[in-house]
């Protein structure tokens, strides 16, 4: 919320400011060692979960990041050992019947990658545990006129005995629409710890976005993920560092802390429990919201 207000005020103040591209030192980052980037999440859903491996690139390299192929990737936990198989270059999948179990800790092992370019393989490891999540009672769609967007409001119980961290992802007709880092919404429970989550705005479906525009009888699905604190922090911080920053508001930029162990590594290994709820965008919902075309 704080960030949103800042951005509104900032945009007002900067109403007459301008931006332009500039040339900085073109050598910037040329000799910076490539980092192995891990993007991995397993959840309590039963499906093939993916761990993606790629190399970071130097600042001004405008190629797609190189995939890390041929790695050996393994997840252990809950007395299981899962070997992931590389089905696309750099994308390592669990079997389709795999799901993580609440309360368990899972360990990721990656090998056969040379991260410090010394000719030898360097292991990458990480671990995370699966917190508990309460089911979503329901979701509702509400038209927010000034933003020209549909708010997805979430209703759920919130356990009061601990700090909880949540991530939300939205789907329209089973297509993920929160498909970039910027669009993921994460929150802690500081404002509603132990109280009923009474219509939390979890995502805004933007009318101007072709994949988010709703048509009658579309199904909207919201997934709520419970995360551990370090992973919540990672998403929040990654968003912050990737976003616009201004000297007026931001502290000095700094590397995002992550839960991977290894040399020259970056990214995350997240284990989350997940629940979902659906709403159908039918005429009743439209009328109730006061929306008109």
């Amino acid at each position, binding site marked *: 919320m*704080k960030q*949103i207000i800042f951005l509104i005020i900032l945009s007002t*103040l900067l109403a007459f400011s301008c931006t332009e591209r500039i040339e900085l030192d073109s050598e*910037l980052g040329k000799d910076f060692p490539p980092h192995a980037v891990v993007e991995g999440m397993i959840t309590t859903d039963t499906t093939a979960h993916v761990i993606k491996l790629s190399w970071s*690139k130097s600042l001004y390299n405008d190629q797609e990041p190189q995939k890390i192929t041929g790695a050996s990737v393994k997840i252990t936990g809950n007395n299981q050992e899962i070997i992931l198989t590389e089905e696309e270059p750099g994308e390592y999948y669990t079997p389709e019947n795999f799901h993580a179990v609440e309360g368990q800790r899972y360990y990721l092992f990656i090998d056969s990658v040379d991260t410090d370019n010394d000719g030898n393989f360097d292991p990458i490891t990480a671990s995370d545990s699966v917190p508990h999540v309460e089911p979503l009672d329901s979701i509702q769609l509400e038209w927010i006129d000034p933003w020209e967007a549909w708010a997805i409001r979430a209703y759920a119980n919130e356990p009061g005995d601990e700090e909880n961290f949540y991530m939300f992802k939205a789907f329209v007709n089973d297509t993920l629409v929160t498909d*970039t880092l910027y669009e993921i919404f994460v929150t802690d429970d500081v404002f509603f710890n132990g109280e009923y989550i009474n219509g939390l705005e979890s995502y805004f479906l933007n009318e101007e976005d072709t994949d988010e525009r709703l048509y009658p009888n579309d199904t909207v699905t919201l997934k709520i993920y419970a995360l551990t604190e370090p992973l919540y922090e990672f998403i929040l*911080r990654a968003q912050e560092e990737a976003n616009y920053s201004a000297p007026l508001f*931001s502290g000095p930029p700094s590397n995002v802390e992550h839960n991977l162990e290894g040399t020259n590594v970056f990214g995350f290994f997240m284990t989350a429990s997940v629940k979902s709820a659906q709403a159908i965008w039918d005429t009743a919902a439209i009328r109730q919201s006061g929306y008109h075309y």
Partner: protein
Amino acid sequence: MRLFIIITILLLLGPIANRADNTNERKPVLSGYITDAATGEDLIGATVYVQEIGQGTITNVYGFYSISLAPGTYNVRYSFIGYRAKTFTITISDKDLSRNIELEPTAEELEEVVVTGEKSNANITKTEMSVEQLGSDDIRKIPALMGEVDIIKAIQLLPGVQTPAEGSSGFSVRGGNLDQNLILLDEANVYNASHLMGFFSVFNNDAIKDVKLYKGDIPAKYGGRLSSVLDIHMREGNNKQFSGVGGIGLISSRATIEGPLWEDRISVMASGRRTYVDLFLPLSRNEDIRNNTLFFYDLNTKINYKISNNDRVFLSGYFGRDVFGSEFARMGYGNGTGTIRWNHLFSKKLFSNLSVVYSNYYYSLGTPENEANSFLWEAGLNDLTAKYDFTYFATPKLKVNYGIQSTLHVFNPGYARGTSDSVSSLGSVRVPINRSIENGIYVGFEYKVNALLAFKGGLRNSSFGNYGNKPTYTYENSERVDTTEHSGGIYQTYFNWEPRLSMNLTLNEYSSIKASYARTTQYIQMARNGNAGTPLDIWFSASPNVKPQIGDQVALGFFRNFFDNKLKASAEVYYKWMENTIDFKDDAVLLLNEDLEGELRFGRSWAYGTELMVKFQFERFNGWASYTYSHAERKINGVNEGEPFLAPYDKPHDVSIVLNYEIMKRLSVGATWVYSSGLPATFPRGMAEVYGNYVPIYSDRNEDRYPDYHRMDLSLTWENKPMMAGDRKVESNWNLSVYNLYDRHNAWAINFEQDKQNPHKIYAEKTYLFGILPTVSFNIKF
């Protein structure tokens, strides 16, 4: 402790001792006030020179002077920059003599530009270095952003003072942090001196008489901040006749009215300002912000009552607010201060001032009311200070001052809560209120050994205590590991000695060498991580976890005047070292965080530099040029892996040129040019793709720099022919100010963005705030 006792005795016995002194053999005293003949305003720092003994004195901040003289007849010269000097032949018998002097401003004489005021060599002879002084007329002549004459922007043009970001009204002195400046408005602490997120300062120049900045060699009288003291005095108000000043500018209007309620005894001054920035928002390209409200206002008032020659009472106040509102958010913040002062002369040699000062800063932030998720977040602080200062004019050679001061700080770091009437999904978060007390007790002296050598110095004892029933915590790696409850009394104290000493060796009438050392201590600081900061930054105090910051500074200067004191050149070098420097861990959470202290990291810092300045005042041409070379670094445990890194305001090269030229009788032109190295920055080295966006990976902190900053501003002022309204002269002028004359696009922020066409291409993009920006304002004075 012994010093405490001595000073207490001095305080108690001073008046009595002095009375006893009256009856004994002693030299009679010549004393009085020096004021402006046109308005009755006190003149601060005016010179009194007794030709026969070749010695003199200057008036204090209340315009008071006092000098002991053996009975006889003397030629006494009273002078002040910008005023015609007066010499009187004064015969001193064996009794004290009181002479109040009025000096005529020379600016009144537009007809003949012969006398342009006193050319004083006080800068050579005074034991005072690392000090810059500006009058409100000097400030008015400087071209201003959007036509808003601004004291802080003028201060930023002085050597050793750095601007934190384009348009910002914060300032960094000799590599220090923005919160290391003690900003006093009529003795009241101003905690957040900015309007409109920093683009303008809270000081309305029309209400201001005089500004003095101490960058080092800070007198023992002041304490509480490491880097500097910015001492701002409001005008007392014309006690001769009612008069007014007003102006209409592009973004604001101002009006000041002042005059005597009782001629020569009671005068009042009220000055107000209101902006209308929001009038321009509808012109914005972004339709979301066209309906937003955005403005600020402020009000300065002052009343002073000359009860008698020995007693004067001043009441002054400031109140200002910024208001922001949009469909989604609202915000308000501002300062309020109030000062009551009583000047009393126990004798002609013992001047005293008792002040009670209140200072408040408040902000609120929230969403519009009566929505399901409405919330309101408030924070602020209150200060209550009492201080008692004495100046004892012992002999023409020796002046002693001493005093005590005590401040209660009550900081409310933040309280956020849902406000809607419906069953809200938002609860509340409250960070406990933090209470503390800060005391100072000091004695200082100025001693002229002979015509060549003079000393100034003093010793200050500062003390600090936390009190209240707020629990304190112990942290390990930012995690709370232990809690200590407190029952309400004082639970943590700190004491520090702060010696100050400076020396002046006058080589001849035109040149001198000065040296100084000063130790300063700072017990309260700002949780501010951004370069320029925001109105939401909160203050926090020393505590069991946070040790007071201690700074030491040595400086050496050479001063040389040329052309009959019309051109004053100075060179100063300084070195500063500071202990218990506070910084924040990477990605610190500073707002609404009860565990703020866990986010702090401590270390030490150091800064050094050279400041060269030439200041000149010729008949039609005046201004200054300065060059500063400086460095500031710090080493903090837990930041940048414990390796030293550049302080946020390290700008090695800094040039300022300020010129004002009177082309003809009614037309003058002002110009400024500034150049400085870019601010230290941390740019990404690598980019990692996470969920389709690029997240930067950095190497060391502050390894990079923004591009160099430079800018030229210009202003033209056309004085209209004065009109007569009855028997009253009405003067007016038009002012055209052009900010950023050659339209340099100075980087305010640099971001690394993903290209729309090729999302894998990253490019650097700068945001610049102001291109060339002309403004016109109309000013009137009657």
